[in-house]
C-alpha cells in the first residue's frame, strides 16, 4: 500500500494532484483543504480508495491515520465502489411518519442487500438519506439524481424493475 507513491499515468490521479496543488496555494493550511480534496477524490473515483488517500497523505503531508479518521467519520464518504444506481431512501421525519421504513424494507427485500451495501451485479447501492427536503411528497427516495415521491411498496418494485431493464 505504502509503495504506491510511484507516479502513475492515471488521468484521474493527475486531476486530483492538480486540485491539490491549487488548494495548497489558496488554503489557510494544508489540512484545512482535506475535506474538499476528499470530495474531489470521491467525485473522480466514485469512492475513496486507499491509493487516493495515500496520495493525499503524501502530497498534503497529512498523517494517513488522520485522513482515515475523516473519511470514516463523514457518512458522505464512501470507502467501497458504488453501484451504477445509488438509491437513497429518505428517512427524514416527514417520510418516516408516512412509512419510509416500509419502503426501505421493500427495497432491501427486492435487492437482498442491507443499507450501505451494493448488489453483487454492481447495479444498485442502497443508502439512507437524511431529509432530502421533499417532505411534501413523502415518502421519497432518490436514485442517482432523480427523486421519486409518494412511494408505495408496489411503486418501488416497478421503479426498480425499470432500472433493471435499462441495466
Amino acid at each position, binding site marked *: 500500500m*505504502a509503495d504506491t507513491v510511484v507516479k502513475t499515468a492515471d488521468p484521474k490521479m493527475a486531476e486530483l494532484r492538480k486540485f491539490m496543488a491549487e488548494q495548497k496555494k489558496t488554503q489557510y493550511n494544508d489540512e484545512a483543504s482535506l475535506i474538499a480534496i476528499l470530495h474531489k477524490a470521491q467525485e473522480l473515483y466514485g469512492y475513496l480508495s486507499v491509493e487516493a488517500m495515500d496520495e493525499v497523505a503524501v502530497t498534503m*503531508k497529512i498523517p494517513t*491515520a*488522520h485522513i*482515515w479518521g475523516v473519511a470514516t467519520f463523514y457518512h458522505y464518504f464512501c470507502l467501497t465502489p458504488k453501484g451504477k444506481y445509488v438509491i437513497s431512501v429518505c428517512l427524514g421525519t416527514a417520510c418516516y411518519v408516512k412509512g419510509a421504513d416500509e419502503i426501505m424494507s421493500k427495497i432491501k427485500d427486492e435487492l437482498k442487500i442491507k443499507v450501505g451495501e451494493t448488489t453483487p451485479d454492481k447495479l444498485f447501492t442502497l443508502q439512507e438519506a437524511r431529509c432530502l427536503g421533499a417532505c411534501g411528497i413523502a415518502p421519497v427516495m432518490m436514485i442517482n439524481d432523480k427523486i421519486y415521491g409518494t412511494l408505495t411498496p408496489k411503486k418501488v418494485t416497478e421503479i426498480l424493475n425499470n432500472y433493471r431493464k435499462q441495466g
Partner: protein
Amino acid sequence: MDKKMITIYIDDKPYQVAAGQTVMQAADKVGFRIPRLCYHPKLSIEGACRVCIVELEGARNFIASCAYPVADGMKIRTNTPELRSARRDIVELILDNHPMDCHTCERDSNCELQRLAYSMGIRKRHFEGEMKHYEKDVSGVAVIRDPNKCILCGRCVRMCSEIQKTSVLGYAHRGFKTVVMPAYNMPFRDSSCTACGQCINVCPTAAFLEKDYTQELFKKLNDKSILKVAQCAPSVRAAIGEAFNIEPGRTMEKQLAAAIRRLGFDYVFDTQFSADLTIMEEANEFLERLQGKGKLPMITSCSSAWMKCLEQYHPDLIDHISTCKSPMSMQSAMVKTYFADKIKRDPKEILSVAFMCCTAKKYEAARPELEVNGMRATDLVITTRELAWMIKSAGIDFLAIKGEEFDHPLGLSSGAGTIFGTTGGVMEAAIRTAYELATGETLLDIEIGAVRGLQGIKEGKVVMDGKEIRVAVAHGLGNAAELLDIARKDPNRYHFIEIMGCPGGCVGGGGQPYANSNSIPLDEECLMKRAEALYTLDRNKTIRRSHENPDIQRLYKEFLGRPGSPASHKLLHTHYKQHFPVGIIPESLKQQKPAEPANK
C-alpha cells in the same frame, strides 16, 4: 500567565487560587482530587470522558473541570447527590461496554478503570446491553491492540500525535462504532508504528499491551539442553521496584541480578557492560567523523523506536546515524561469539534473553540485519513489567532477596554505562570517553549538567583539543523531529546529537511499570526520580568512564582488537535503510522516490 489570586468556593468553602488555570488544577492544589479519566497533564484537554464533571452554580449543565477555567467567586460542588449519580452512571456506561474479564485480564489490579469503578461504588449494573466486538490485533512483534478493552479516552491518540508526533493511531468511524486504530485498520505489523509503547503507558486499561513472551521464556527456562543467558538494561533497575510498591527512585540492581538468577538463568549479564562497549565504538566513530570520515552531526542509534522512526520519517538523515548497534544487540552479539567461545559452547545452544524497559526492543531483536553468524542475536525480549510479573509468578520474594552481583565477563560496567538509561546519558558517557581519546587528557568535570533533565531539547558544548564541540539531546519522537528540523536548517550547528524515542529516555520506556494508584503515567517527578537513581549509581562508582572498564579492555585485547576494527564492524555495527511508512510523510521523503521497493 496571570498570577493574580482569586477566590473560588468548592463545596461551600472559599479557597484562594491562582487565576488562569482550570477548575481541576485549582482543586488539585487545595486537596481535592476530582475523579478523572481522559485527562493527562502532558496531553491536550479532551473533555471527553465526562468523569470529572462538577456542578457550577448558575450553569444549566455540569461542567468538565479539566477544561473549565476558574473565575473569581465561582461556586463549585463536587459531591451533590445528582452529580454523584451522574458520575457513577457515566462510569457504569463505560463498564457496560467493556469486557467483564477483570480476573483474567493482564491489567487486573493495575487498571485505572477498575480503580475508578471501585471509587464510584458501582455495585450493580443497570444499563447493560450490546457490547462492541472487534478482532484483537496481535500482528505486531512488540505492541498488540485490543479494541474491545478500549474506552475511547483518547490518551493514546494524543500521545501518538502530540508527544511522539508519529500519528499512527487515530479515531476511525464515529459514535458507538468509534475505534482507535491505525490508518485503514491495517495490522500493526504493517503500520508505521515505531513500537515505542507509549500508548501502553498512557492507556488506562488493557487496550494496548506488549506482546507477551513470558510463557515461552518459562518453558525454555526448564529446558536443560540450552544455556540461559540474561542481560538487563540500566533503566529496569531504576523502575522495577515500583511494580512492588516501592517508591520511585530506589534502585534494585543487586536484587534484580539475584531474582533473574533464581528464575533459572545460568548467567546474568548487564546491558550496561555493552553500553560501555557502545561508547567505545561510538566515540571512535565520532572522532573519525570529526576527522572527515563521515557526515556530521552524528546521531545516536541506541533507541529502537527512534531507528524505526528514522527509517520511515527521516530517511534523509540515514548517513548521519551512528552505525553502532544498540547496547542490547552488541551484548547479544558478544554472548553468541566471544562468550560462547570462552565457555566453549555452541552458540546455537545459548538462549539470549534481554530484560528491557522498552517494547521496541522486541521489534529490534527481530530485525534480520542484526543476526550474528546466521543466528538471531537476542532470542527474547522481556519488558520490566513482564519481568516483575515473572518474579511474582515464580514465587520469588523480590523485596527480601539478598542482592547478588552480575556475572563476568559481560557484567561489569562503568558509571557511564549506567546513565545510558536516561535522556542525555549516552551523550554524557560518550563525551567522557571521546574527550580522553581526542585529547589524551582525562575529563575532570564529568557531570555534564547541560544535557541532564527533562527539557525537550537540550544543547551543550565541550572544548576538545581547542575545538568547540556542540551537542544536542532530544527525548520523545516529537522533540526529536523538532531538533532534526533545527539541524536540517542549520547543518553546522551541531556535531553530535543524541535521540531517545521515549519521554525521559529509557527510564520512561514503553515497557516500564504501570503507574500505581497514587501516580499518573509518565509523571515527570517519577521520571526524574528514576533518572536520579541512575545518576546516584554513577556517582557511587569508582569507574565512571567506559574506557576504564577492565572487562571492556580485556574484550578488545582478547577478541575485537580495537574500536572500529574489522571484527567490531562485523559484530557491533549495522546499517539502516529507508522504509516507506503509511503515516506522516515529510517533504524530505517526497523528493526521494524509492529506488527499490520498501522493505516490509
